[in-house]
């Protein structure tokens, strides 16, 4: 078994005291904490290596360019795809906007875009905008008791043969792992382009995109131990390169005259301007760090923690847990009786417990669950049994204050 305590020591923030209490960080679905390796790489870059990429002939610029481009190789090999199939963006949100804009060039009033009911607003609104521009229709797959209705979804896909299926691998609000393998294979048979939002799955599931065989996959570095403000987009090369450019500017061009401009091939044509160099290098350091840890041991550990948390939570009378508790990356989304999630989270914070409360940028899902929000505790491998004890004790004390 992996030594969790020694991994925890790699994350300096986990030793932090808040108001004299140890931090109990259960908000990794919002953003994961960063190991020293990532923090050090970013610091060293600005201290010793800072330079722009793809521009200079001088040593620093050469080195920065090599680091920046080798980071692309790092993430590509992590996802088991080709290096030229990775585009750097500011994160999953920008990647989805790039895709919705690019793919909508082929939409018309007969087009159908399918999404799941669990989607983050970032995977709803860009498609809604595309539908408004083109007259296409947004189709929402069905759900049963907080879990995707897989058979219903497959039937609906076969019936409507959408142009695009855009859905999350893992629900950010509930932690559900969706059966995307079966949906992708249905989509292949009916000619539907698949866009998978991997923001919540990259760290926990380490997907092999060649095996998944989706057309596009988007991700954010900060949910996977990396820095904020950087992320990426994977696309099967032919399809990626066929997308129209979304942002324009320097660096992405081949030739510019006042009459017309021509663009580089993907991924370059989607990366105008000076990129987030330190972010990309920091992200690669995060992937290097993850690569050092045995994935199956880590997944087993996360599942053990999750089920311990779930069991303890269910023992508290009046708690309602939402979502799929069988296939879950380690998120408990819950409410207590009719208490407001805001009060619960505010009081939990007084005990040093960091959770998220609210609609989790999934207002349509909350409406379907008939709640105005939930409290969400989300785990990562750097959490331990003490965190769970800490959280449950704080929750019991909170409930006592409220009752």
């Amino acid at each position, binding site marked *: 078994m992996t030594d969790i305590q020694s991994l925890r020591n790699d994350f300096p923030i986990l030793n932090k005291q808040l*108001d004299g209490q140890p931090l109990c960080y259960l908000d990794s679905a919002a953003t994961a904490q960063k190991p020293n390796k990532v923090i050090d790489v970013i610091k060293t870059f600005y201290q010793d290596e800072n330079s722009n990429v793809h521009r200079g002939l001088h040593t620093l610029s050469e080195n920065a360019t090599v680091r920046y481009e080798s980071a692309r190789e790092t993430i590509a090999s992590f996802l088991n795809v080709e290096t030229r199939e990775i585009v750097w963006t500011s994160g999953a949100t920008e990647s989805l906007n790039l895709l919705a804009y690019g793919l909508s060039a082929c939409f018309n009033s007969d087009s159908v875009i399918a999404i799941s009911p669990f989607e983050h607003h970032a995977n709803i609104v860009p498609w809604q905008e595309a539908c408004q521009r083109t007259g296409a229709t947004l189709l929402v797959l069905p759900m049963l008791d907080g879990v995707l209705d897989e058979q219903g979804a497959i039937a609906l896909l076969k019936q409507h043969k959408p142009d695009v299926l855009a859905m999350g691998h893992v629900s950010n609000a509930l932690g559900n792992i969706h059966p995307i393998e079966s949906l992708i294979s249905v989509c292949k048979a009916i000619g539907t382009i698949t866009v998978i939002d991997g923001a919540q799955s990259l760290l926990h599931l380490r997907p092999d995109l060649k095996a998944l065989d989706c057309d596009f996959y988007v991700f954010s570095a900060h949910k996977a131990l990396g820095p904020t403000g950087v992320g990426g987009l994977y696309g099967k090369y032919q399809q990626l390169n066929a997308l129209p450019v979304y942002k324009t500017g320097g660096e992405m061009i081949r030739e510019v005259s006042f009459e017309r401009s021509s663009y580089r091939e993907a991924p370059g044509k989607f990366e105008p301007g000076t990129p987030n160099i330190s972010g990309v290098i920091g992200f690669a350091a995060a992937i290097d760090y993850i690569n050092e840890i045995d994935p199956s041991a880590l997944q087993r550990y996360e599942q053990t923690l999750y089920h311990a948390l779930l069991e303890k939570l269910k023992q508290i009378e009046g708690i309602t847990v939402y979502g799929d508790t069988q296939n879950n990356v380690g998120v408990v989304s819950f409410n207590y009786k009719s*208490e*407001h999630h*805001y*009060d619960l989270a*505010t*009081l939990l914070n*007084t*005990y040093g417990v960091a959770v998220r409360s*609210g609609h989790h940028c999934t207002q349509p899902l909350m409406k379907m669950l008939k709640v*105005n929000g939930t409290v969400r505790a989300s785990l990562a491998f750097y959490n331990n049994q003490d965190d769970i004890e800490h959280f449950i004790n704080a929750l019991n*004390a909170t409930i006592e*204050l*409220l009752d």
Partner: protein
Amino acid sequence: MNIEHITKKLSESHGWQAKYREIMLLGKQLPALPDALKVDSALVSGCDSKVWLYLDLDENAQQLVLIADSDTRIVKGLLAIIIAAYASKTPEQASQFNAYELFESLGLIAHLSPSRGNGIRAIVEQIQAKAELLK
């Protein structure tokens, strides 16, 4: 409920849990708004929780009349403090009143920072703006 009493109660509570307990008790004493008045047009925008606020002028006494409610206990308690602070003030007095100083003195300033998202700032700004119009 008067503001001196609230200030005393809160200053006697040590630790955040005790403060929040006091705040929630203040909220409990605030009369609930009838459902008919919980309409979207009365919602204060910029709040994470729902806050309904009505503000008018008692023409005879030339004093502000405030009623408000929230769907969360803590924000409702904070509303009780705000109402106690502004009630019985003339519009002139209200527009000169510094709610931030009050929350600072109560040790609750964290609730006025924008990042808290609880909209106390939005509520105070709305009251100030309306008081300005009633002057």
